[in-house]
């Protein structure tokens, strides 16, 4: 008898035997109020997932734009001399291209943010209240926060 035939015979034996245990194997049903409670929980989770997916779909196109706006704002400022990545960029670099490269190089959300933040050690920049640079730095700080929220980092 081949191994397969052996296995089939064993399987047939078990298939015959298990039903003989019949209702003794069955379990009591769950309480009605537990079933009702779980239905509510499941429906609520389904709605949460629907909203989460809708939000994700709605936000996705804006993430790129937010990042582009952030980088565009950053590029308008004179970069700190010791800051290499942005300083190395041409002043008229295309923000979309910068964003694409940024996304390609940093596929993890939190690494992207960390990289951006590291690029702008804003605490090191001397602020002069009321100047355009001061306003721009505020915008960048806000943008970082918004970006973090958008990307869920």
């Amino acid at each position, binding site marked *: 008898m081949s*191994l397969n035939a052996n*296995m089939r015979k*064993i*399987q047939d*034996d*078990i298939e015959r*035997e*298990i039903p003989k*245990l019949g*209702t*003794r*194997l*069955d*379990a*009591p*049903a*769950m309480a009605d109020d*537990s*079933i009702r409670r*779980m*239905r509510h*929980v*499941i*429906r609520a*989770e*389904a*709605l949460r*997932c*629907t909203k989460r*997916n809708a939000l994700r779909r709605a936000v996705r196109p804006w993430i790129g734009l937010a990042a582009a706006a952030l980088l565009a704002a950053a590029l308008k400022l004179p970069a700190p001399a010791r800051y290499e990545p942005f300083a190395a960029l041409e002043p008229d670099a295309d923000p979309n291209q910068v964003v694409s490269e940024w996304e390609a190089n940093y596929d993890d959300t939190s690494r992207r943010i960390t990289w951006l933040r590291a690029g702008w050690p804003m605490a090191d920049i001397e602020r002069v209240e009321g100047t355009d640079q001061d306003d721009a730095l505020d915008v960048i700080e806000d943008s970082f926060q918004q970006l973090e929220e958008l990307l869920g980092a």
Partner: protein
Amino acid sequence: MEPVGLERLLRRARQHDPDALQELFDAYQRRVYGLVLRLTGSRHTAEDLVQETFLRVVRRIGDYQHSGKFEAWLFRIAANLARDHARRRARRPVFSLGDEEARRGEPSAPRVPDPRTNHPEHGIGLDEASRRLHGCLSKLGETDREIILLRHFSELPFGEIAELLEIPLGTALARAHRAMKRLKCELGEP
């Protein structure tokens, strides 16, 4: 559930349609509950695990690719949760509040949980014959018991049960065969 009806239902469920997800729950909750109740021996734990199983279904259904194996997917989630629960429980030391040390506010020595007190003959309202059967089941090894219960509750073929437990089909059959022999012997059946 009929394959065509299930496929239609799953299509809606993947869009997170609450009615479809509730229908899935209604269709399968009894069997999932039976399995996890038999595996854990506690109504309370079984209810928690059923809820967690279906919550995972809701969260992951968007990624689920239907290839006629929804039940295998569902029961894999349930069985894995029951197994994780058993492992956590086995790792967690059991303390008795009645211990002299506890009364004095000192930690008592950890006790190894007795798997037989955690099994289905205890406190879930069974008749005598069922109680006896489940007493025998609780003496089986974890995987052997799981195979018998999965076959009964999930109604999956052994090939899928073997896949679900990540063991070769021959091993699953041999274990099931041995388990059935032992059960019959314990029950005094020919």
